């Protein structure tokens, strides 16, 4: 990645500016949707400490998402707001990965979903601190510490489950097997991403994949869990082609904004 401050402003080029907008949106949508899912647990967690931990994660994710949306609307320059992005886009306009929209399931599913995301999000945030885009770099710098804590939290639980009881081991392995198919999409490097790499804004995803693999292997070994084989990998989320789950999530999330258009809250 090139150094910040090289003088090139991607926002001055319309094609680049659209790509940067889409990229910020992708990063933001992953975080918002995951935050929403984690918020669904609030008050229903397996133990009070986890209610706190999940709310904390949800807060970190929504905080980072808001920073990214705030930047995205500036890049776009059409006067939209963070809430316009969150509440007034339809299913097909969300560009999060399918992984984060998957339902909570049991606590093993929730933990595994977060673990797989964290194992990707931490090295990504670290790399983005060196982005040529000062704003993306600043947002990432704020997120790195949080992402370290998130990965530790999800890894600790995954290890407890894997090496805990027979039941927790079985549930964790089932969750891992079920969600593995959604990991491929995290590393798909399409035209938008290529443009970001060329501009030094985003890292090559193959380097993030290496870090992801190393984390997964280390944690699964300690958890005595089996890494699923890389079979068919689901994708489409980045192009707005989601699972059926997302529509219901958005219907709930956007209800008030849709029911009372233009109202302030």
């Amino acid at each position, binding site marked *: 990645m090139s150094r910040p401050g090289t003088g090139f402003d991607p926002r001055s080029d319309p094609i680049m500016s659209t790509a940067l907008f889409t990229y910020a949106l992708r990063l933001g949508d992953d975080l*918002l949707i995951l935050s*929403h899912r984690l*918020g*669904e647990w*609030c*008050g*229903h*967690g*397996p*133990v*009070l*400490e*986890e*209610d*706190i931990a999940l*709310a*904390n994660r*949800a*807060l970190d994710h*929504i*905080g980072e*998402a*808001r920073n990214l*949306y705030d930047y995205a609307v500036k890049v776009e320059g059409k006067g939209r707001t*963070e*809430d316009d992005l*969150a*509440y007034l886009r339809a299913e097909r306009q969300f560009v999060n990965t399918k992984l984060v929209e998957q339902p909570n399931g*049991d*606590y093993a599913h929730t933990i595994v979903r977060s673990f797989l995301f964290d194992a990707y999000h931490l090295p990504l945030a670290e790399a983005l601190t060196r982005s040529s885009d000062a704003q993306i770099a600043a947002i990432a710098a704020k997120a790195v510490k949080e992402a370290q804590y998130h990965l530790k939290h999800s890894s600790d639980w995954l*290890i*407890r*489950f894997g*090496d*805990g*009881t027979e*039941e*927790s081991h079985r*549930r964790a392995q089932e969750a891992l097997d079920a969600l593995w198919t959604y990991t491929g999409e995290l590393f798909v490097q399409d035209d938008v991403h290529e443009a970001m790499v060329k501009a030094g804004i985003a890292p090559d995803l193959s380097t993030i994949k290496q870090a992801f693999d190393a984390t997964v292997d280390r944690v699964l070994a300690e958890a005595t869990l089996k890494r699923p084989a890389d079979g068919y990998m689901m994708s489409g989320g980045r192009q707005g082609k989601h699972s059926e789950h997302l529509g219901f999530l958005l219907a*709930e*999330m956007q*209800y*008030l*904004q849709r029911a*009372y258009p233009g*109202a*302030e*809250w």
Partner: protein
Amino acid sequence: MTDVTNLEERFQARIDAEQKIEPKDWMPEKYRKTLVRQISQHAHSEVVGMLPEGNWITRAPSLRRKAILLAKVQDEAGHGLYLYSACETLGVTREKTIDDLLSGKAKYSSIFNYPTLTWADIGAVGWLVDGAAIMNQVMLCRTSYGPYARAMVRICKEESFHQRQGYEIMSVLAKGTPEQKEMAQDALNRWWWPSLMMFGPSDANSPNSADSMKWKIKRQSNDELRQIFIDRTVQQAEVIGLTIPDPELKWNEATKHYDWGAIDWTEFNNVVAGNGPCNKERLAARNKAHDEGAWVREAALAYAAKKAKKQAA
């Protein structure tokens, strides 16, 4: 007998001298029992209180509101933790305390048996329910039992943010579209009387109050706290142009307080008896979370045991 009397006198002398009672100090059994009942009810209220508000986290109308509500409900979980710990200093484990909640034996604040029907209810809960709770909790910062008082000091720091965010939601709605204003007024109409009931029966009908006052667990009576709350809240409602749903509410120049209408204690007793709109749902939700979380807690214990064994070897 003389010994106990003597101990009780010395205990009362310490209370009168404003000394804090600590877990290892001698205390009358009834003092301990009163505290266990009160602190555990308080802990359960924090935890059950997460449900009506959690109900709107996924539907909060803006990212800012969603984040604030998440932070607020997270605080309540923390309050539950502090209070379960305070309870443990009196020799009752958290597991036992929680079991009493789940079996329906222990009580929690009846206010949480009312439903949050619209977004304005999130405003009303913060403004009125947290607002009423603060009255009690500020008093409890000076309660005679040390661990309880210290838990309250931490809790009070967060509660004023809860009250403010609720009031802010209400004031935005009250200034908003006609539909929003109607939503806010409707929420106030539904939450006003139950909030007044949060202070408990009037002093004349409050059986445990005398001992609690003598032991300085409480320092102000239910009616005194209710009066302060009403005086303050009536003015806040005026500022944002909402009407308190009490035709008898009137400023009394002689007492320098508001007079208010009669509270419907039949409703209160009904909700306490388990017949509130959401009693069954609240208890069912807590039980479901507990049952479905059993394997998670077992796994954590099993893993910790394995790890301890490995380290010992």
